[in-house]
Every structure is written in C-alpha cells, then in structure tokens.
C-alpha cells in the first residue's frame, strides 16, 4: 500500500475523521491510563512509607 503523499495518508480516502478519530482517542485513553497508574503508584508509595 503506497499513499503517494502525507496529505493522502491523512485524508484516508475521505475517511480521515473516522479513522484518526478512532486511533486518536484510543491512543489518548491508553496514555491517560498509564499516567493515572503512575500517579496512583506514587500516591500508594508515599502513603505506605
């Protein structure tokens, strides 16, 4: 699969909003989970000390 240009890649054949909307939200949520886990661990360690 060759896209030709980066613009074509972003456009996703006209479905850019749907495809990137899916991938973007998934990435943000997973990153948020990891940040929350790191924060929870910090709190747990502090309170356990």
């Amino acid at each position, binding site marked *: 699969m060759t896209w030709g240009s980066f613009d074509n890649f972003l456009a996703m054949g006209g479905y850019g909003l749907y495809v990137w909307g*899916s991938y973007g939200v998934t990435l943000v*949520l997973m990153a948020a989970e*990891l940040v929350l886990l790191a924060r*929870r661990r910090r709190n747990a360690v502090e309170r356990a000390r």
Partner: protein
Amino acid sequence: MSINWFKYSSPQTFFPLAGTLAAFFGTLAALACAVGLYIGFFVAPTDAQQGESYRIIFIHVPAAWMSMFLYVVMAFWAGVGLAFNTRLSGMMASAIAPTGALFTFIALWTGSLWGKPTWGTWWVWDARLTSELILLFLYFGFMALQAAIDDPRRADKAGALLALVGVVNVPIIYFSVKWWNTLHQGASVSLSKSPTMATTMLTAMLIMTFGFWFYGIAAVLLRARCIVLERERGSEWTTKYLRAAA
C-alpha cells in the same frame, strides 16, 4: 518435581514478579503495536467495498475481543477469591476492571466512528451494540460497587457476585450476531471456518490483538501492584521493600 502453586498467590512474592512481567509485556505490546500498525497502514490494501474506513478494524476488533476476554478473566479471579478466600484473587479482579472498561469503551467508540460512514448511523440498538454497552455498565457497576464498600474483603465479595452473574452477558455478545438479526456484521474470523479477509488485513489485526493483549496484561499488573501497596500498607514487607527501594 512438585510446584508450589500457592507461592505467587501471596502478595509479597507476587509484587516483584508483577513488576518484571509488566515491563516485559509492556515492551512486547509496544513492539506488536508498531508492527501491527505498519502492516495495517502500509501493507494491507484498500478494501474494495469500504475504502480506507475499514482500517478502524485494526483497533476495533482487538479492543472488542479484549473487552470480553478481560471480563471472563476478571470473573475467574473474582470466583477464585470467593471460593478460596485468597487475598490476591480479589486484587486481580479489581485491577482488571478499569482496563476492561477502557477496551469496552474503545470498542464502542471506534465502532461508532466506523458505523457512521458504513451504515449511516453512529448508533443502533441492535443486539451486538446493546450487549457490548451492557458490558461497559457491568464494568462500571463492578467498580462503583467496590468503591462504595470500605472494607476491601467485603468489597471483593460483593464485586465477585456481580462479576459472576454478569459473565452471562459475554456469550450473549459473542453470539448476538448469530442469534439475532443485527446491523452489525457476523464474525469475519472464527474457529470453525477460514477467515473472510485478505491475509495482510488478518495478519495486522491479529498482531494488534497481541499488542492489546500484552498492553492489557502490563496495565493490569501495574494496577495490581498499586492495589497490593494500598492494601498491604503498614505490613513488615512493604515497609522493608520501600526502604530498600528508596
């Protein structure tokens, strides 16, 4: 050789092992997702019917599979905790719920964004979508119930009952597309017949499934470690561990 199956059921021995395993599976998850996305976006061809919108499949199907799988694992640990009264089992069940809810939400969200261009609607109350939404509410209900009970052991027991009753919903989700006439398509991949997809598409989807699976394992283990620290606070081994780590 006899294996002591109960060795790792003690939070004290589980804690360092979980840390090592989380790092291992986290790395594997990143690798699998990188390879899966590469194949999904640069090797797999355009779909003849759906154009590029089908590329949502590489996260939609893995997330949906994980949402059901994690629920079964959560119910399993909840059941083990209820039957054998082992401390760690309840902690595992609690650790799984938020990640399971996350995958369920991702499955619904990406499904909605896929449904709009393909079906012309963000949402329909068909059996597949509705039962998956119920799964999200089961995860939320489990978390809310546990959060509402102060004593963690009692919270585990109440949560376990809810988790075990709710497991009925998983086969309903899975077979919904067979049992009812749904807008959602039937399974493209099943154990009984060969997949109805191009090989590269299937490969990307399966690699992404492993990526999400490993991510789920890593996230659950990291959360289980937090829960162990929260619940075992004040015990001799946590104090010792934290002093050594400082």
